[in-house]
């Protein structure tokens, strides 16, 4: 490389800034060969890989490679890698799942994404029920309509609640007491039921008499509900449809009829198990009693 202005072998480019002139040095020849190599590479690439955009697609390239097929292959690879865990999860008794730490972790992770895809629409992304709406149970608390043991949760998910699609769906129907009781009786009952959260005796007084005659069959004489019947616990602090007078009046007069699809018809067994494991560890899951 010529660096000196006085060297007569090369001229200058004629550019001159404040007396500093630019020498017209030739490029190294290997640089030229590198340029040719990149051009050759470009030609080969255009032949082998998708390159020219067309109106609705692009040239495919003789290798047939595409990002879409690559993603499909990666998904297939992940599915294949998880196949063992999936079949293991499908065959595992949920009661002892938590003891198998790696499988439990897999189930919870899978359950989390299944929940986001299938359950979050009603139960909320945080599983605390639909924001601003009533009647979608909060899954984070320790109050369960149909039982909080992991197998009970799995049954609820698999068969759903009050749907026509699955004959094994959880089913219970509270009568609409608006047709059975007088308005004054309902008002008395509303006041009585509201007081149950504060620890009042379920069977005391006029309201207690009405409760014993009409409600205790399902909700129990202690008002603690019955998860076999899906009858809510009326003595706790949790009110699915609200604890104000208007809400409770509406509930007693018209009854509520919450529904849930039978997910066993849409998801496979491993996915149902994973969802049950996920919901069970959200904070309120109850241990399976040891026989």
């Amino acid at each position, binding site marked *: 490389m010529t*660096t000196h202005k006085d060297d007569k072998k090369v001229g200058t480019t004629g550019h001159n800034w404040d007396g500093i002139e630019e020498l*017209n040095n*030739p490029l*190294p020849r290997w640089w030229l060969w590198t340029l040719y190599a990149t051009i050759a590479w470009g030609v080969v690439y255009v032949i082998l890989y998708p390159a020219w955009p067309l109106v609705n697609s692009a040239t495919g390239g003789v290798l047939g490679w595409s990002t879409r097929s690559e993603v499909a292959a990666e998904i297939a690879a992940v599915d294949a890698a998880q196949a063992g865990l999936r079949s293991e999860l499908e065959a595992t008794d949920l009661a002892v799942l*938590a003891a198998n730490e790696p499988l439990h972790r897999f189930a919870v992770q899978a359950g989390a994404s299944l929940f986001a895809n299938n359950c979050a629409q009603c139960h909320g992304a945080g599983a605390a029920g639909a924001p601003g709406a009533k009647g979608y149970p*909060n899954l984070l608390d320790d109050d369960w309509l149909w039982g909080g043991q992991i197998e009970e949760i799995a049954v609820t998910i698999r068969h759903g609640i009050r749907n026509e699609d699955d004959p094994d769906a959880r089913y219970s129907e509270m009568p609409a007491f608006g047709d059975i009781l007088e308005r004054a009786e309902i008002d008395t009952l509303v006041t009585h039921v509201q007081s149950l*959260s504060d620890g009042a005796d379920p069977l005391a007084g006029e309201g207690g008499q009405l409760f014993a005659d009409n409600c205790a069959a399902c909700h129990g004489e202690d008002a603690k509900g019955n998860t076999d019947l899906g009858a809510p616990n009326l003595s706790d602090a949790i009110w699915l449809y609200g604890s104000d007078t208007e809400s409770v009046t509406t509930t007693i007069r018209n009854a509520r009829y919450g529904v849930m699809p039978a997910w066993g018809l849409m998801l496979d067994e491993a996915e149902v198990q994973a969802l049950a494991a996920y919901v069970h560890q959200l904070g309120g899951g109850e241990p399976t009693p040891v026989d």
Partner: protein
Amino acid sequence: MTSPTPSLYAPRLPIFPRRVSGFYRRLKWGLLVVTLGIYYVTPWLRWNRGPDMPDQAVLIDLANRRFYFFMIEIWPHEFYFVAGLLVMAGLALFLFTAALGRVWCGYACPQTVWTDLFILVERWIEGDRNARVRLHEAPWNTRKWRLRITKWAVWLIIGLLTGGAWVFYFTDAPTLLVDLVTLSAPPVAWFTIAILTATTFVFGGFMREQVCIYMCPWPRIQAAMMDEETLTVAYRDWRGEPRGKGLRRRAAAEAAEAAEISTRAAGPQTGPRSPLIPMPGLPSGLTVLAAPKPSTQAKGDCIDCNACVNVCPMGIDIRDGQQMACITCALCIDACDEVMEKTGQPRGLIDYIALSDAPREADGNPPQSVWRHVLRARNLIYVGLWSGIGIALIFALFLRPEVEMTVAPIRNPTHVVLADGTIRNAYDVRVRNKLGSEQVFDLSLDRTGLVVTVEGSDSETITVPADSQGQARVYVDAPAGSDMATRDRSDLRLWVTDLDSGERAAVDTNFTGQEDDQ
């Protein structure tokens, strides 16, 4: 085609650096041994960290995201240490460039060091400069093939060792060596070795100065970091010119003598010349002041022997002045000093010079001391910044906590009402166990009346395996009607205690209650 147009593309002109000896050559050999020694030996140093931990002193464990350096272990969240070291490296480069020019390029750059090694091999096999020029011009006969193939083979072995040493920094070296020998090493190891072998072979054997001139951005950047006080390799043209040898030199001397006689009445024309910059640490012979020269010699000290050009690995002529291609390897200084000694003239015709001294020396005055050039505000600011960051990093290293926890309150929802009216807040808690054995960490709060539970366990403890991060969902429950349960937001401090060592750390977070309790 009447006038020959210059070619747009020039082939590389081969360079055959001649062997040279002297102070700077010895210094460079020393640095070569030290730097290559560090590079090849480091992965084999061992350091005991406990049974479950790697025992390699310096290890970049990409798979597990850890960096080990003797007693120091860096986790990914402590990457600021690496950033700090990189900033220090940058500032050190600024400092060295401002004070001593391109010393990095000339002495320590891997391109320079490996090229030096490759040229050494070349000289052992093919002979010194003249023999190599002859071999280059010789036809491809058996001898040339034999020498060339021997040389390329040795280069390839060096390249292989270079790439081979690199991969040892990323995994346990003895294990990998066994895997390499038994051909069971992972493909990435082979791939890395292949690439580094190829680049070493090509860059050190064939590209050489082309890498510095055309591929490296550093020559352009460094030009902006040097100033007239920077000590750099330069030619004392006021002392050397006009250059000449043999008959021309004698003629020039006679002309000079005649000129001197004719102007003798006007007083002495040659004063004390070319005093050298007193360099601390250099042999005293280098700093001897120039003796007054007999006027019968030529005006210039340069005898145009081209020794400085012949030894230059960049193939340039330092007498052309400062230039981008010069990596200041200082070999021309050694070459010229050898010649100056033979011709009985003072050394230092080519020397480390600050350009601000040039007019001073040309007028016959002594140059400023080397300390005046080095110890100036700009360099001192660089040193200050460099050591400031270094001290901060050392403090950070010793002050970093043994126990570390992060707490992320779950905000969707902010709180949950349990059946008995208890208000529950949930937190994602991560605890780092930096020790080489499994540890149990206990969680506690800074106030009473609240209950802490870890999801999936009956206790308040999190068990974290060795050298990893444990994650748990932690619930804090406030009883119904309590102060925290009915206040919208309360401050809360979560303590984590290592039950083995008693070491603990705290994280401040908050607790959300239900203010409007219906």
